[in-house]
Structures are given as C-alpha cells and as structure tokens.
C-alpha cells in the first residue's frame, strides 16, 4: 500500500519525511542541508508519482500544509517545516 519513500541514512533525529519535487531547486537545497546535517530521513518527489498514488501523497501533505507547497517536511507526524527555511531546519537538527 502507498508509495515507497526513499531512505537516506544518518543520525536519527525523529521520523522525518520530506515531500519534494524533482524539478524544484529549493527542495534540492533542503535535501542538501539535511545531508550536510547528516540527518536520517525519507523523501519522495511527488511530481514523479502519478494517479491515485499522487493524490494520496497530496492528502498526506495537506494535513500539515493545506497549500500543498514544496518542500514540506513532516517531523514525527506532528511538526512541519514548509519551504527551505534554513535557520529553522538548522535550529531543529543541529
């Protein structure tokens, strides 16, 4: 069930899910920052998913970010960081 998310290993700082777009440079920067911070996370490029699977992902995102903009990072299924907010991301994981 559902779409397989890509795992990037690192230091576990919670259950981190990054919803991204393959063409979005702010999404790329967000991933680069998570890599730099060596954080363990999962991500998915929503634009590469089609049909009902994509619809399901959009619903997942909207629970935390009704505008469904990218990137949306969900932490432990409760907090979220919308957009490439470098200060906020560093503060959270450094």
């Amino acid at each position, binding site marked *: 069930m559902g779409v397989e998310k890509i795992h990037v290993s690192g230091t576990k700082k919670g259950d981190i899910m990054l919803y991204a*777009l393959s*063409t*979005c*440079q*702010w999404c790329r920067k967000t991933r680069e920052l998570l890599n730099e911070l060596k954080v363990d996370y999962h991500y998915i490029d*929503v634009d590469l998913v089609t049909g009902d699977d994509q619809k399901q992902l959009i619903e997942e995102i909207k629970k935390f970010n009704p505008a469904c903009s*990218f990137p949306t990072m969900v932490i432990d299924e409760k907090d979220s960081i*919308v*957009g*490439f907010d470098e200060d906020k991301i560093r503060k959270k994981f450094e």
Partner: protein
Amino acid sequence: MEKGKIDRLFNKLDRDAESTGYHLNPDTPFTRSLVKGLIVNQERYGYQACPCRLASGNQEEDLDIICPCDYRDPDLDRYGTCYCSLYVDEEILKGKKKVKAIPERRDKQQEKNPAPASSGLGYPVWRCRVCGYLCARDNPPGVCPVCKAKKERFEVFVEK
C-alpha cells in the same frame, strides 16, 4: 538532458528578461537547474509550469503557474524574487541582497474578480495577467507585446 537545450532556453529567457526590465537570477548553476526544470515540465505536461509547484497536467487549471507566473510581479515587489527564484530584482542581481526562499502566494480557492461592466468604450479592455499590460481591442494579442506571455494569459479587465 542535452546541454544545448538548456543553453538555448536559458539564453532566450535571459534576452527576453533583460529586454523587458526583468532579470534572471545571477546564480547561474541554480538558474540553469530551474531552466532544466522548465524543459522537463514542457516535455511532461506540454507547458512550462513553475518548477517549484506541482502541476496538475491540465493547462487550463495551471495557467497561473506557467512561467512567468501570475505571481512574479507581486513577489518581485515584495521579496525581490519570484517563488522559484528564476527572476530577481536589481538589488539581488547586483549582489546587494541575497536570494531567500519565499512563501507561496498562490491560493487555488481564491475566486477571480469579475470584470467590471463597461461604460460603453466600444472595445473590451484586456489585461495581461503576467505583466499588467492593458489594451483595448476585440481580442487579446497573440503574444503580449511587453512580456511575451501567450494569448491565453489575458483576461477581460473591463467589459465592452
């Protein structure tokens, strides 16, 4: 992707921008990646949807996010950059200010304002949603003479 393809669109966008008072982001690798995203979207959806927004695949629904998007001007005014940061203002171009990610302005729920009824001008007034260019004629021009946006980006601003 073939490098020449990115070069061609990059050069075209740069020329168009500079000749119409806009500027591409001076961070060339970043900008080229966005241009590549535009080509990917052109091939995937048939139109150059914003690389930083999820396109629906339905052009009609996505007219507002076809690059340059309807939100470029207000975002340039407010933040000095458009949403994906393909376009920036002069301060950022000259390195006086850094580009930062900005919040999403698009609101899909928002209703469009109906065009005001006319005062008998004899012609409807068309407005380019990308740059605000106005013209009074029976139909919108094929391309906006100011920003080169296509015909479908025009809306009736004042009814005939």
